[in-house]
């Protein structure tokens, strides 16, 4: 079943005085199946973040549309957009975006509190997630008291606790050391195994090599994609590296 579908997305930024037009996305189409783990790769300035913002309903495309569960994002009313995001999407950011004024538990509860859930319900949901992410002991701590990896795990817990249809991750390993990166990627893998659909934007080959499918974006277009098939992480890593080399040296489109 197709969960997310991007159709001919185009995004043009106009500078403030209407002078220059910058084409961030020119023609992006792809779809994500239920339960898939997709990585989107591309160099800086290739339009990755713009794409993610559009998928997250934070930004609107100039042309084309995004369907989530066959509902077009453009039909969601402005007033409902926050609630829609809260109920359907989970976010993991490069810089965690945890609030200093809450301990980890309350940070994780934030979307549920906004949705008006009872405390009992929230605790019930938190237990298994915290256990899986290995942060059960840290829940009473404040963000400034824990390490970056622990912060990111708390952020993942916050993204998962609403049982979203889709988790969107923006460079989730960008601010982590290699050990924390490994931990986080293992967690993403496990979560995906449990049936959670994940879409991750990254330029880390290592992060991408854990995904089930890797999309490459260049100059605002989907340039290439690699399916994992039966490849191991290492084999996929190699393939991604090769593709990136090819992209960098300006090779022609193939396959």
């Amino acid at each position, binding site marked *: 079943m197709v969960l997310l579908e991007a159709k001919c997305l185009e995004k043009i930024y106009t500078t403030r005085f209407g002078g220059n037009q910058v084409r961030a996305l020119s023609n992006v189409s792809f779809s994500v199946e239920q339960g898939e783990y997709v990585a989107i790769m591309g160099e800086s300035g290739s339009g990755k973040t713009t794409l993610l913002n559009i998928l997250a309903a934070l930004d609107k495309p100039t042309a084309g549309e995004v369907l989530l569960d066959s509902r077009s994002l453009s039909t969601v009313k402005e007033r409902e957009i926050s609630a829609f995001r809260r109920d359907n999407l989970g976010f993991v950011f490069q810089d965690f*975006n945890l609030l200093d004024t809450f301990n980890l538990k309350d940070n994780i509860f934030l979307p549920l*509190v906004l949705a008006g859930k009872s405390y009992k319900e929230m605790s019930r949901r938190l237990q298994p997630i915290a256990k899986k992410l290995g942060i059960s002991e840290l829940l009473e701590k404040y963000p400034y008291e824990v390490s970056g990896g622990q912060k990111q795990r708390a952020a993942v817990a916050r993204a998962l606790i609403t049982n979203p249809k889709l988790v969107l991750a923006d460079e989730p390993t960008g601010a982590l050391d290699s050990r924390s990166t490994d931990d986080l990627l293992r967690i993403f893998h496990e979560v995906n195994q449990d049936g959670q659909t994940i879409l991750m934007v990254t330029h880390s080959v290592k992060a991408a090599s854990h995904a089930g499918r890797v999309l490459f974006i260049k100059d605002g277009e989907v340039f290439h994609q690699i399916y994992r098939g039966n490849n191991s992480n290492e084999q996929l890593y190699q393939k991604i590296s090769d593709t990136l080399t090819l992209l960098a040296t300006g090779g022609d489109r193939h396959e």
Partner: protein
Amino acid sequence: MNKGFFPKLAAGNIRRNGKAYIPYLISCIMTVALFYIMVSLSMNPGLADMVGDNTLKSMMSLGSVIIAVFAFIFLFYTNSFLVKRRRKEFGVFHVLGMEKRHLSKVMAWESLYVALIGLTGGLLVGIALDKVMFLVISNIIGAEISLGFFLSGTAVGITLLFFASVFFLIFLNCVRQIRTSNPIEMIRAGSAGEKEPKTKWLLAVLGLCSLGAGYYIALTVKSPLTSIFLFFLAVLLVIIGTYLLFTAGSIALLKLLRKNKRYYYKTRHFTSVSGMIYRMKQNAVGLANICVLSTAVLIMVSSTTSLMLGMEDTIRVRYPNDFVIYADEQSEARSEESFAQIRALQKEKHLHVTKETQYPYLSFGAFLNGDTFEPPQYASLGSIDRVQTLMFVSLEDYNRIMGTDKTLNEGEILLYSSRQPFQHPTLNVLGREYTVKETLEGFIGNGLLAAVAADSQCVVVRDQAEIDLLYGLQKKALGDSASERQYYYGFDTDAGEEEQRVFYREALDLYAQNKYQGTMESKADSRSAFIGLYGGFFFIGVFLGALFIMATVLIIYFKQISEGYDDKQRFEIMQKVGMSRQEVKSSIRSQVLTVFFLPLIVAGIHVTVALPLICRLLALMNLTNTGLYIACTGVCFLVFTVMYVLIYLLTARTYYRIVSR
């Protein structure tokens, strides 16, 4: 490193940290200005011309001390946040090879610049404000007031000395903070965010007790004479209580709220409660300052306004007739003679007399013990709050003057109490026991009695013989210090004020020539003195009120603005996590509203509790019209609230612009 390096770096630092430094500098300038004005006002030579100048002077000095304490706490506190914010910057300097003593040197230069700017700016603003306010307010009052603009060298000196030491202490504190931290901690500090404040239960409870004690004193104090001392004690306790409750109490309360899971995990409360914990940590002292200042403004302005408005009432009590002579002669014949001389003068000068009042009376001080008045020599010191003035007139005189026909049996009296009611059915004095037949609503006017701060009991006895008896007993008990019989002669006239004044001078001369003993008062002559005095009070009230409001406005404004920059980031994160713009806005609004209006509400409570105490103090100045004071307080509170709301709206607009940009 060459010579100019540190000064230049320090100047650059201040410029680069402008966002944080400008509010701090403005706070410094305003605090210095406020302090200077208070000190210079307490040294204003015009004060000496005001009646009760000693009380006024000591009150102003107390005011200066309170402002000094404010200034110290406030500047220290504001600065500590500034330094905390800049720890990361210090860490980077450190890593780049500056030693701690170099950092201290930079801090020394920065402190010097701040001190220079704060002191010169503050003094200039202070002097300018002083001048402007004198002009504006004397224009508004329109009357000649005994205070004038005054540039005091001593005040400048005191201000310079005090703030130089405050800035020096602040500098030492900065150095301490730099010394005790290591560079890695400092580099991290910037991103670590604000630590959650600890709950200080002891301080919270202490604050509650202190506030409770202050309130208790304010509500229960009975006698006006003791209430001047108790007033200061209550003020001190309430200030301490307010500070402790705002700092420790608020956080304790918020944490209790957070423990209540049912309450806390609600969309509306979740972000507000946790946000408030941090907001209170940063703002508690500022808010307590605002609260205490607002209370001071409200009480000062409303009491001085009601004094001004109630002046005619007061004058009527103090001067029952247009002219009053209190003769203090040995014999009745001689006082009659003096009154006859005055009557002759009236005829000679063609002063038209509309009404005359004349009666003899006996008056002396005594200590109240139960239902017994004891002569002074039996009373111990420290029983000053029990001292009362007794005044005796005969029934015949009372009925004649008041136009009543009351009757009394042997041993019965009629009683009128000027301030505190007499609560016993019998009254004992000098071994005589009387039954109180009736308490009276009004009494024959007597200005000398009204001028005394002590309570007075006016007693109507059966006949003149009874008074003579009491006079004898009193003479025996007190010996040389006993009071003489007095004779009151008052008359009203429809002559103009100037004519009355001329007559007053002539009557005074006549009295002096014949060496009559007694006091002569003219309402017309005294009125101008009253206007000068009360105008002076009113002026000080309005002056300091306006000043405090200005300080309050600036403190609030810059606090909110500098907070806006911190909140911006949180605002963004919350939106990313799925809070709608509307939700974020309402959450922030509720927090800002609380921060803004909490001090005002607490100030309102303080003022309400202070009502009985202030009324008693005003009664000392013969303003017994409680309704007038309550009305004045109400109006002042309303005007203050309106101004406050305007400040809020202005601040909120700027704040949202920063946050949502």
